[in-house]
């Protein structure tokens, strides 16, 4: 005797086993970039993947805080006005202002300089935004894809019959372990924390390193905003997870004592 559930399970199993998978790896913006494709046929997809990687390198040349000839550095130094820059610069400046406003200042691209004054460092937003932007080249191929840039992931499943991508959330205390799983069909997962690069997130309100939680993961419709909101919750503290959930994002907070909790998005009725 078979039930509807049996049949559905059998179909999912058959679909998964019939799918071809391929991955590409590249270092961009000083971080590992992985592109994964999954679909019945992956032939002819190389060009789109190459376009993603090319776009990431192009955006790095504009926004790199390390390359002295980047538009960002020249804009920062006053050698370029916003009008002289690529249109992407205006977009990023606007998005950073919006992010600061929406998070009550918990996300802020302006960084204090040691000698006083502020510098504009949008890298906390650029990474997720660049991946969202570059991965557009993968839409329309009819295949499932995800792009993982240094631990932040944008993903899409092209066919409703195919399963969601299963994303493991790394345990900040032990990078060889995952502490939770999220399913992602369309959108982004971003994790902010101190496990990989030390205390690189600072609290704009105090000017000191933010160290409330061990890590904050945000899952939602776009990687750009998942990334901004993960930073904001990390800086503000776990109580901000509730506000982010109100906006339709899922939050996973891992505390320094190893406790972890999940806040599901509130969906408007």
């Amino acid at each position: 005797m078979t039930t509807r559930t049996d049949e559905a399970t059998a179909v999912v199993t058959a679909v998964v086993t019939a799918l071809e998978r391929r991955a590409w790896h590249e270092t961009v913006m000083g971080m590992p970039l992985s592109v994964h494709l999954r679909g019945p046929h992956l032939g002819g997809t190389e060009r789109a993947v190459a376009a993603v990687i090319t776009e990431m390198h192009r955006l790095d040349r504009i926004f790199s805080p390390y390359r002295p000839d980047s538009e960002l550095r020249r804009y920062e130094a006053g050698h370029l006005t916003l009008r002289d820059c690529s249109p992407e610069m205006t977009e990023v400046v606007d998005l950073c202002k919006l992010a600061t406003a929406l998070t009550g200042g918990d996300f802020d691209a302006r960084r204090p300089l040691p000698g006083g004054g502020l510098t504009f460092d949008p890298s906390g937003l650029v990474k997720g935004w660049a991946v969202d932007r570059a991965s557009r080249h993968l839409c329309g191929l009819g295949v499932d894809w995800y792009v993982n840039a240094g631990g932040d992931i944008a993903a899409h499943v092209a066919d409703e019959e195919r399963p969601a991508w299963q994303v493991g959330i790394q345990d900040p205390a032990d990078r060889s372990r995952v502490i939770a799983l999220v399913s992602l069909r369309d959108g982004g997962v971003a994790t902010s924390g101190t496990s990989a690069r030390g205390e690189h997130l600072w609290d704009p309100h105090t000017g000191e390193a933010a160290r409330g939680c061990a890590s904050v993961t945000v899952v939602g419709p776009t990687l750009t905003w998942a990334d901004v909101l993960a930073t904001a919750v990390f800086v503000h503290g776990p109580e901000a997870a509730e506000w982010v959930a109100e906006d339709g994002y899922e939050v996973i907070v891992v505390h320094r004592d190893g406790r972890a909790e999940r806040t599901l998005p509130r969906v408007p009725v």
Partner: protein
Amino acid sequence: MRKIVLAGATTLSGLVLLMAYPTSTNRAVESIPGASSSTTQGTSSGTTSATTQGTSSGTGTPAPQEAAAPPTTSSISGPAVSTRWGTVQVQITVTDGVLTEATAIKVPDANGQDRQINSYAVPILEAESVAAGNARIDAVSGATVTSTGYIRSLQAALDEAGLK
């Protein structure tokens, strides 16, 4: 209704708190009134078959476990268990002894009173970490990984499998 699908083997000992992740189009959470209580036991790893005991409910029907039979699927509501955060109840679907779906149908609120799931933080129990560790994972999200840290990362291992 879509539910989280944890493809892969896992050991379930007592209650596992696993939350459904709602997709952007739908809530994944469904109330199962009057669900029956049962236990699931099994040793697991890889494709080892686990034993499922319990009264089924929901859409699934338990079928006798036979070798080389089509997949047998049961939906089982676990017992309502008191934790320090309140009462927690989970419904799981087991296919051929492997956990394929898990949905929390009751979680505590901040006052320890039962309520349907809303935007409340619920604890991720140790058991979920264990389940996650055994599940099929496509990608890993973590605090910014540098190129040097990447080499030994779980994501690198996943990439390796697909690189040509």
